[in-house]
């Protein structure tokens, strides 16, 4: 499948981007700009772990959709509930 070297590379990217998240926080950006960068980095890391460590990339796409449905349900609940407060 994939070599240990490749997995190591993924691991390094994950490690570095976690560090960047904290550095962004300390950089003193505007709150929502920092918020955006940090959340996008988290999402990117999550995709990397799911795609390579959980090897979804090489699985039938149905498994990805399955998890996607759960994600959509959770997001729908969160967004709609928060919106209902406005």
């Amino acid at each position, binding site marked *: 499948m994939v070599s*240990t070297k490749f*997995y*190591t590379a993924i*691991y390094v990217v*994950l*490690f570095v981007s*976690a*560090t960047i*998240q*904290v550095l962004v*926080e300390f950089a003193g950006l505007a*709150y929502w700009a*920092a*918020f955006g960068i*940090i*959340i996008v980095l*988290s999402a990117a*890391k*999550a995709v990397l*772990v*799911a795609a390579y*460590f*959980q090897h979804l990339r090489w*699985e*039938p796409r*149905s*498994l990805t*959709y*399955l*998890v996607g*449905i*759960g*994600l959509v*349900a*959770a*997001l*729908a*609940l*969160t967004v*709609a*509930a*928060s*919106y*209902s*407060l*406005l």
Partner: protein
Amino acid sequence: MSDTNPERTGGGSERTDGGTEVGSEVVSGGHTDDHDHDHGHDFPGTGSIKRWFVTTNHKDVGILYIVTSLFFLVLGGVLAWLMRIQLWAPRAPTETILAPVAYNQAVSAHGLLMVFWFLSPFAFGFANYVVPLQLGAKDLAFPRLNALSYWLYLFSGILFGVSFFQGGTFSGGWTMYAPLNVPTFTPDVGASTAVLALVLFVASVTVSSVNFLTTMHRMRAEGLTLRNMPLFSWTILLTVWMMLFAFAALLAALMVLSADRLLGTTYFAMESPAGALLWTHLFWFFGHPEVYIVFFPALGVMAEVFQTFTGRRIVGRKWFIIAMVLVAIQSFVVWMHHMFLTSINLQVKTLFMITTIGISLPFDLMVFALIYTMLKGKIRFTTPFLFVFGALLLFIIGGITGVFLGAVVLDYEFRGTYWVVAHFHYVMVGGVTALVGGLYYWFPKITGRMYDEFLGKVHFAAYFVGFNLLYFPLFVAWETPRRVFDYAPELAPWHQLATIGGFVLGLSFLIMFYNLFKSAFTGDPVSDNPWEYATTAEWAVSSPPPLENFEGTPTYRDGHLSFILDRESDATGGATAADGSGGATADGGVATSPHTAVTTEYEPTVEATEVEGPSHASIWPFVLSLGAFLILLGISPLQDTAFPEGMMGAAYATTAVAGFGVTLGSLIAMGLEPFHGPVFDEGEAWPFSGIDNGKVGMWIFLASDVVLFGGFLGAYIFTRFAFGWTGWQPVPDDPIPGLVNTYILLTSSFTVVLALVAAEKKHKLGLVTSLGATFVLGIGFLVNKALEWQHLFHEGLWLSTNVRTSTFFLTTGLHAAHVIAGLIVALYLTARAWRGAYLEDSRSVEYFGLYWHFVDIVWLFLFPLFYIL
């Protein structure tokens, strides 16, 4: 897509819907019996008590579900009678028959017991029994987990029963609205126990959902595509999909509530921002799909029975299925119509009114399909048909009266009145009506004997009269306030009618119990298919079916059901039945089907069956459930993380500790127990073809876990939003410990990857080292977290300090609990790897990795949300 169906145009006699024509003379009874015998040496017969504790067979589990759920029907029914007696006349709080709080408990317990412990499990009794037969599977994918589902269900019900004796059970209504659900207002220990009983019930449901989804997607017979699946199986499939996600949201709600009650968090406390609203969102996000979760199986029974007793395929079958799929999806976007009188904004109310009207449309199509099926067919008024026909009428009334409630303006008037009570009883008990029809319908299949038709019809008459006498007056007396025993005196005659109806309805079940009990022993023996025109596969095997359901492998590849027999199973000669299920089977039963389409083919066995056949017995599901029961009972008196003083507290604490021991021990025993699941040759497996059952099961479980964490994170985001997003500071003032834990967890994920690589290379030392490193890193994560929590605790920040700290400690605590669960598995894997396991078959390591990476991913979001932003 992968539906490589043969064309089914030829031979007009064959039906291409789920109901494939089957005949009755499949194989002789002799073969049937020796299958039981083959694997029966360590598996006691049905006459033995032991059998029912160790069985993992889907048909046994189905019977257990049905019997147990009927017990809860009686319990919930007696509570309803108590309420109806009280409601005979309006009463002041001082002159009641039940004490006011006892009445509130009866109302709440009646609702919870009927919805959770009767309705769904009753339906799942049939699902357990019938679905594998309809699919052509020998059992569910994970038989031991199926037994586990049952035992968790039974023990959750017992736990609920215990709650009555701990100062009184929950008394805040079945919806458990906040803040009534926190100890300030419902202080009894029993109220906490009722919540914990629900948690255990949800555990059962989750295990069951994973099992059914894996089975139904992966283990259909060759040629049985989803498109051709029988309608009852279709409704169960959609039900379990809804269950998987809806119950995960309920689990989040219940865990948060348990934490509020036992650990002192303040999510739902009066002073929390939008705490009451948070509960309604979480509860109804589950609660509305739950309406269809309990109703869909009833719909499936209706469809099957309509087809059989009108002798006609359902009209517009494809559209019927599409309508059901639509409802299943739409059910997740209508929940706020239960909240029109809360403080949610008008725009969102309007939006949800529209979606609510939208969900009634597919139902119209289904109702018309059923009516038109009757018109085009030739009806035979047997007991099952009478019940499902009655159910259709009741459901139409229930559905139409519900449309009133879906309109925002009308709901302002109707909310909290008996209109709501009458409406949902017409819907829910309407569903029960169909399921009772299902009980009569499948009774001959399950017992091998026919019930008494005359008594069945008498039961229906009494039931239907009692039902309408009970619930219809409630529409008329709609101005009665819900859940309250006092009402305007001029409504009393209507309530008296309803009380009389309640007794008629309840007593009508005595006729059923008498009829079924007597017939189970002395009824006329039936053939494979006592119903002419019954078309689904359960009617192609003997009544009751043999232990492993089919002789040979069922296949639909020629457009109808046939069996591929391998010579080996044919060669093992006749033996006596070990099943103990009576000689009433349909051995001699001559074909009665009008179009006998079953063919039997002989094909040489491809592989000499290497294992000695599937196992059917394990005691560990029972023991494991007992352990879980003890844990929850033990922790039930906790308040603010402390046990009560004195002997009582010590006894509870001991119970909890013993429960942990039993649970852990039985988990390990279950892991080590040699157990072979059902052997199956992959047939139709869309959309998971080519993926191992275990992996599919793990991913399905993880999808529900996504919703569980989604519920927790959603609760956090919602609460923070209500509080004012930017005014809310992260609880830890320093993100560095969190960052360190991120590093640790990422590294542990990496070591799990290395473990799998080593296992695949058959590199034992690498495998053990990597798994061991994962374990050590996980411990490091927990130690670091403990230090951080201790530091915060000394700063005066703890679970109950405020809602900000509550969300922090509880959400990261749930994550830590996932880490601990993972570490236990990691330790187990390391020990087994040390002894040489997983080098030939690394799947266990892989599945553990999927879980562990998921826990890692969750942390990737918890870290920024709780430490940085």
